[in-house]
């Protein structure tokens, strides 16, 4: 990656948001525009993936809604994200939690991370 592009990308990065890791329970507050009205929508779930660097980075949040698995991918540095709230951290041993897609109910629960 070119140094100049690196510099340009750094300008567009949002540094006000908390650091999120794979396995975190998060609440993502996104701005939704309906006509000229603006409101905030919350998407709560567990982060199953982080990818990309600098401004191109994105993360995917998974939740189970009325028995149906729902995943939503957000660009981390998007201006449409109002805030991100990290509600808990879980102990995970891999960088992509795709295995959660095949698990249901109690088996799909992650263990909470304990401070050492």
């Amino acid at each position, binding site marked *: 990656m070119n140094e*100049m592009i690196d*510099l340009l990308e750094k300008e*567009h990065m949002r540094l006000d948001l908390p650091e999120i890791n794979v396995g975190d329970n998060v609440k993502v507050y996104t*701005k939704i525009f309906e006509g000229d009205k603006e409101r905030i929508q919350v998407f709560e779930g567990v982060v199953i993936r982080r990818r990309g660097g600098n*401004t191109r980075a994105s993360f995917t949040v998974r939740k189970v809604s009325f028995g149906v698995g729902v995943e939503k991918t957000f660009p981390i*540095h*998007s*201006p*449409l994200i109002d805030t991100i709230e990290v509600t808990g951290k879980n102990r995970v041993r891999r960088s992509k939690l795709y295995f959660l897609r095949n698990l249901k109910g109690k088996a799909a629960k992650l263990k909470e991370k304990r401070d050492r």
Partner: protein
Amino acid sequence: MGIGLLGKKLGMTQIFNEDGTIVPVTVIKVGPCKVTQKKNVEKDGYNAIQVGFDEITKVKNVNKPLKGHFDKAGTSPMAFVKEFRVTDEEMEQYETGNEIPMELFNIGDFVDVTGTSKGKGFAGVVKRHGFKGAPASHGTHEYFRHGGSIGQNMTPGRTFKGMKMPGHMGNKRVTVQNLKVVDIRGDMNILMVEGAVPGPTNGYLIIKKAVKKLGK
């Protein structure tokens, strides 16, 4: 017609619009571009401004005739030199040895970007012309990526000129028209245009005002 800038493709990235949409952009280093020669009707038979870009740091590698040419203009030797055909009025705006300002383009303008496309070598018809190839099953035998028939029989008795066949692909001059200028950084000599431009990273580019938007 009209003067343009010379540049170098640095690569691609993406930026966010105010409404949150992601715009793919190509980052181009334009300039410092300097006027290395002015050609006029009396002496050369046509009006043109010769522009140089990308200073050569190792002057000892430049041969003497070229070095003399750049010395005459009062600039250091340049690796990429191109001519732009210009009108009489434009001729008076630029002096030999001077830099061409980046203010030639503004944010929101449309530009045409010319470069040399990436070479693909000897390519078959599927890659080169987008042919569909033959069916993968139903008894096809050793004929998967072929182009099919290339003509008839005794009449006309030859294959027509321009028939799409395998051959060398890429590594030729390509112009992409009507790319929108998204951002300009005067201090860094950087121009950002929406979309892709021909050629590899570090490939040389010619950037001109969009021909199809001149009258608007």
